């Protein structure tokens, strides 16, 4: 059993599990950290960005033309090109061998088109409906933002190792930029997602009959799940982004994950030192403070997940602070469908939200906010938005990387005033580096990272509860974060056997497959004559033909009756069993003329002494030794007498 770890970022997981005869891909996360090395793509022409100074290393003597590829903003250097993404290491193995892809949440789907398109992939993809729809919205938004303002040229010269090492940090630390890829197309997205088969929680799905896969709620976002992959005698659990906090999704289910042979754990919180509740409080306070001072608030966000919670908490807080009249805008190409879908996925929501449907009310208050005009959503800043826009306001828009999307426009618009605030809630990007190409910026920047996935304390508690025999985690979780080197509480600490992985690792999972389930054909089963060997346990000899199809084993009666006779009669062996009755044995010996018999009890059984034959018989559980000084005839006789005293099968 092998586990291939394709992703370098534990929060964007991508594994391949080879188990029994199947090859299963677990998640398909896309690391978008590479985006930060690129210049933002403004919606309207930005003279500031286009006038940034071109940059090239001082001592560069190479042949490639680098002049138009890099631009400097302050001390940072950015690539002036279409943005590129870091893919999982898909070249480790042949993707056409992948039988099934299991997706656990919408954020872990973004690399899917790279996996399924043009790769020879012909397997199945399983995901819950909200994961599919959420993933689709995220991908469509991404494609829309990237394709809306296409960059004319592609920069590749800077990726040359000679140049790369001359660049300033952090761009010089970029890992294997030659492997970075540009964004997929909408066609690829549709083609890829068309292969997804929707599943429900706790629905059992067989993969070629070899294993059964089951999704169970992980409590992280709508439709997010953890997977258990089970054969008849082995169980592997994949715990992806999970949350034990009470938010809008269905709560996390623990029982399907208990007592596994291997538990693969990923996507723990990236902000282990902060409490999400406190951060939501900080977010609301900062927003209210900015609005009271007459400023605007910009929230770079994804069109899903925490954003819905932010709408809810913020609207309540704004009411409470007397700011009900301040509008909230949500701008995304998928804003409409995102808001609509969230309110129709009632079955995937927490009990509190689910019960609202029966009132009947919309599960999320943003439906009401939209109806009352407090939350206004638009696909973009053009068109009707400009009629409704007024200031001060709260603006939710993408993309959180600040490299494309409408957010770029609003930073350009509001960045010059210290009265405005940009609040970062998403944790995918370091906010200071995200802001770097916009410097100098007067607008206040506040970091309120809200990551509801498991923190280390919760993860350790969960591991204690689930009791896996082996735990597989990223080696990053084994030591404190770099910024908090003394926080020894920010690690996974467990008594379970733990296997660490690094990006690109191929792990041999220590599972010994001992048993396999075999079904017996009814006809053959009827012919068996079981013998009870102890109360409740009966055994029988069986001979048949083992037929294996779709990883299912069936023992059938031999098709040739002759061979059946041969099998049962000519080749028949008898098995003796049972406990030796010493009285019977002594009387049998007497019957065979051996009357001088002395029996002693020993610690392990009995010792039978035949003084006249100078022979000792040591009888112990499971073994008998006859010590007869080379008298082979006597030994065989004694053996036969002893076997007569045992039961036969």
């Amino acid at each position, binding site marked *: 059993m092998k586990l291939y770890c394709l992703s370098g970022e534990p929060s964007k997981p991508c594994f391949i599990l080879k188990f029994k005869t199947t090859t299963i891909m677990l998640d398909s996360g896309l690391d978008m950290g590479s985006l930060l090395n690129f210049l933002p793509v403004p919606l309207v022409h930005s003279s500031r960005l286009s006038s940034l100074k071109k940059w090239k290393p001082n001592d560069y003597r190479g042949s490639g033309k680098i002049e138009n590829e890099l631009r400097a903003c302050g001390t940072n250097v950015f690539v002036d090109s279409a943005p590129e993404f870091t893919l999982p290491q898909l070249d480790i193995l042949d993707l056409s061998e992948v039988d099934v892809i299991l997706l656990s949440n919408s954020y872990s789907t973004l690399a899917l088109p790279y996996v399924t398109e043009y790769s020879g992939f012909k397997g199945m993809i399983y995901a819950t409906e909200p994961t599919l729809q959420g993933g689709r919205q995220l991908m469509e938004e991404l494609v829309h933002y990237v394709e809306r303002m296409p960059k004319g040229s592609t920069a590749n010269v800077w990726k040359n190792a000679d140049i790369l090492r001359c660049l300033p940090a952090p761009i010089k630390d970029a890992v294997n930029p030659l492997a970075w890829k540009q964004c997929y197309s909408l066609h690829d997205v549709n083609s890829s997602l068309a292969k997804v088969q929707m599943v429900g929680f706790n629905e059992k799905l067989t993969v070629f009959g070899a294993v059964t896969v089951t999704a169970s709620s992980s409590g992280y976002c709508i439709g997010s799940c953890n997977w258990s992959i089970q054969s008849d005698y082995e169980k592997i659990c994949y715990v992806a982004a999970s949350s034990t906090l009470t938010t809008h999704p269905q709560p996390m289910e623990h029982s399907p994950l208990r007592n596994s042979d291997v538990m693969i754990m990923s996507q723990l919180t990236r902000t282990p030192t902060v*409490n999400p*509740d*406190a*951060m939501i*409080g*900080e977010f*609301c*306070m*900062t*927003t*209210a*403070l900015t609005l*009271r*001072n007459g400023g605007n608030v910009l929230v770079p966000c994804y069109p899903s997940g925490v954003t819905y919670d932010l709408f809810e908490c913020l609207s309540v*807080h704004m*009411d*409470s*602070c*007397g*700011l*009900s009249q301040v509008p909230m805008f949500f701008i995304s190409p998928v804003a409409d469908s995102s808001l609509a879908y969230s309110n129709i996925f009632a079955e995937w929501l927490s009990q509190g939200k689910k019960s609202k449907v029966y009132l009947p009310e919309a599960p999320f208050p943003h439906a009401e906010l939209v109806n009352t005009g407090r939350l206004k959503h638009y696909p973009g800043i053009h068109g009707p938005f400009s009629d409704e826009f007024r200031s001060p306001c709260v603006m939710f828009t993408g993309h959180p990387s600040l490299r494309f999307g409408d957010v770029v426009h609003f930073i350009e618009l509001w960045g010059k005033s210290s009265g405005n605030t940009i609040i970062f809630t998403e944790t995918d990007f370091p906010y200071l580096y995200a802001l770097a190409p916009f410097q100098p910026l007067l607008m206040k920047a506040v970091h309120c990272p809200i990551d509801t996935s498991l923190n280390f304390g919760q993860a350790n508690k969960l591991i204690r509860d689930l009791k896996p025999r082996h735990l597989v985690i990223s080696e990053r979780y084994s030591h404190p974060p770099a910024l908090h080197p003394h926080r020894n509480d920010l690690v996974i600490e467990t008594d379970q056997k733990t296997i660490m992985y690094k990006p690109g690792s191929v792990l041999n999972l220590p599972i010994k497959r001992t048993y396999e389930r075999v079904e017996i054909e009814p006809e053959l089963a009827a012919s068996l004559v079981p013998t009870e060997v102890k109360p409740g346990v009966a055994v029988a000899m069986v001979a048949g033909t083992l037929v294996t199809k779709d990883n299912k084993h069936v023992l059938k009666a031999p098709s040739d009756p002759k061979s059946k006779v041969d099998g049962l009669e000519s080749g028949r062996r008898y098995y003796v069993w049972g406990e030796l009755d010493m009285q019977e044995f002594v009387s049998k010996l007497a019957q065979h003329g051996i009357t001088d018999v002395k029996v002693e009890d020993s610690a392990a059984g009995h010792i039978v002494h035949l003084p006249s034959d100078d022979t000792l018989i040591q009888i112990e559980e499971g073994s008998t030794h006859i010590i007869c000084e080379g008298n082979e005839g006597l030994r065989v006789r004694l053996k036969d007498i002893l076997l007569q005293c045992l039961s036969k099968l």
Partner: protein
Amino acid sequence: MSTTNHGAATLTCPQLLIAQKRFLHQVPHTSSVLDTQVYVFAVRLMGQLVANYDMLQTPEEKYIVTACVQKATEAEKWSEPSIRNAVFTLLRLMLKYKGALDLVIKLDAIHLAFESLSDPSLFVTGSAQKLVTKLIITSVTDHRQSTSEIHKSLIKQLWVVLRSSSDVAKKATVLKIFQDLFHEISNVILEEVNSLDFLQLLNKMIRCDSAVLSREAATLCLVYKRSNPADSSLDLRSEVCNLMHSGHVHVALNLCRQLLLREYQHLADGWPQDFLRQPLIIVCGTFINPLESGQFAAIAKSISKKSACLEVTGICLGGIEQLLQQGKDPCSFAALHTLLQLTSQECQCDVNHSQYRKFLLRQPKIQKAALRCLHQYYQLYLNDETGIGIPDAFVGSAQYLVDSLGCVDLDVTIVSEMLKCLLPAIKLAICHSLLSAEIQMWPEVLDLLGGTLQKRLCDMHWETRDSTVEFVGKICQSCADDTTVNMWIRKHNLHTLSWECVKDGESYVRAGALATVGHLSRDTTIWENMKIVKDISQEDVVHHILTIISTDTEGFARRAALDLITRWYKDGNQLHAQPINDVYRTMVAATKDFDWEVKLGVLTFWGNIIDQVLSNDTLPSYAINLETSKKFKGVVPEEKEFETKVEMLCSIGCCQALLFSVEDYEQSVRKKACELLTTLKAKCLDNGLIQGNSRSKSSDPLPTCGEINMTTPIFLDSIQQLDLEALLAENSKSCDSYENNPMDLLDDILASQRQDEEDNAIDCY
């Protein structure tokens, strides 16, 4: 007004007394149909009578008492705690009359009281305890009674309970009885109980497992010592030391804490505060080697567990707070500062090494107690006139407060305590000239505080927004004269954000913000800057406040807005050239408010107007723009001057509002309106606008509030019609008088009981 006075006044009415007796006479004979609550009422009524009137004078009265009590002690009724409580209270009150002790014995009340010493109801236990105490004291002091020796038997019974009962609650109550008795008759007790035995028993009880018994025994020790200071067999200091060494640190500290109470202070000459400080020193790790002193080692050992550590630290802080309240400095400011750091998650300094940090971290009770002490310390230094200065850790403590205040998930009560501390801290900093830029850290501290307060003014919890906006108001009220503070308020927009809080969604915050706006408006620099920053005029401000008075859904906010307008008028300097007619119109409309306190506030506003109009020779500043004021400015002949003033009051709606309020449903509003009208009427009489004896018999209704521009003649006619003296007398009756004159209530109760047989099922729907 006290109930007793009114009760006495009521009893002077013979008719009422007769009625009450008649009712009480009926009660025992009305048999079981009466509800238990009627018995409770009857016994309480009797108690009230007995408090002022000897009910044992005649056989008939004695019979009423006996019958009522006997009826009440029947099993069914006696099971009701309020009956037991009322009977014990009645008997205790009765004991001041001759023959009462005999009656109590006859009614077997001693037995009942002893049984109730561990009653499940604390009220019953308390009244039984007081009855037993009173019985003993009466028996000792009142020799008129034939049973004056009863105290000996009672003391012996109590002593038996104390020695041999297994009922902890009962023993605790007996200890309380002894505490009361030692105050009054310690010599008598010591005649019956051997003092050595007594002290030995107390010593044992102090060390018992029951916290309540231990506490009461310790208190009794102090009471004993106070009553018998010469008794050398009880040395309190040794006792405290012994308790500490035997691991009863919390008992010892509680004893020390009690010794700080005023009544016991003379028993100890300062040593209790040394003891109280010791645990704090250990917890803070400032004590280098605990093994140096056995006592310190004993304390350290006893607080090795979390619960014990928290309990001892809590007692210790309570004691320190007591000392500080008495103006004494227990010299533990630095330790207190360290303790606060230990409780704070944000603090990552040297305190991390303390082994007690894990116990104390984010413990709200300890945090609050420590903050209260810190507040007391600041007050102490603030009131210090000896000029001893402030401790070295002062700046650090202020820094701690500001740092911690920034923590997002802080409990709202802790935020409030921190803000309470910060106010005297800033005052202290001003007093000691620490705010200037030359003093290290302070500018940074103030900057950080400014940013934090900004956020707290927009906090998720309204309680925090409320306490923060109040804090800003207080700072402005007391420190705005200081240039640095004044600039600091403006730099961090605390004035504009406070103004924004007037629009808050929570009424308490709006009310707090309105009070703060009042303080802000007193400082011209801040106020003018606020208006410039927010781009609003004074007229806008007043209009917004008037809107709150007219439309706010919460009375609390409307009252605060009203107070602000009233204060501005009283100060007379904020409403120049303002929409004065809008103010009057709003005030007239507010006369009809649903909230009686708002209406009272409106009357206070009109009261101020009347005072200013009638008392000043010159026109008040706020009236300059009024049309009627033109008449006042020399155009009118002198003899007509008063009439013009009244005319002006009529024209602004003041007079009609007063007349409307005279008929308000709320008594206090009617009373206030009557008082104002009486003053006005008297002035009108003095100035000859109305005739003294010419009260018209007209039965015309009083004008309604909706009527505007009431003419002066109508008003004068109206007040002449009104018998204001009678109205005032009627409206001045306290509601207590109804409570003490329960005839109507009695009739209702008895009437309802008589209707039992009738079909009195009423369909309420």
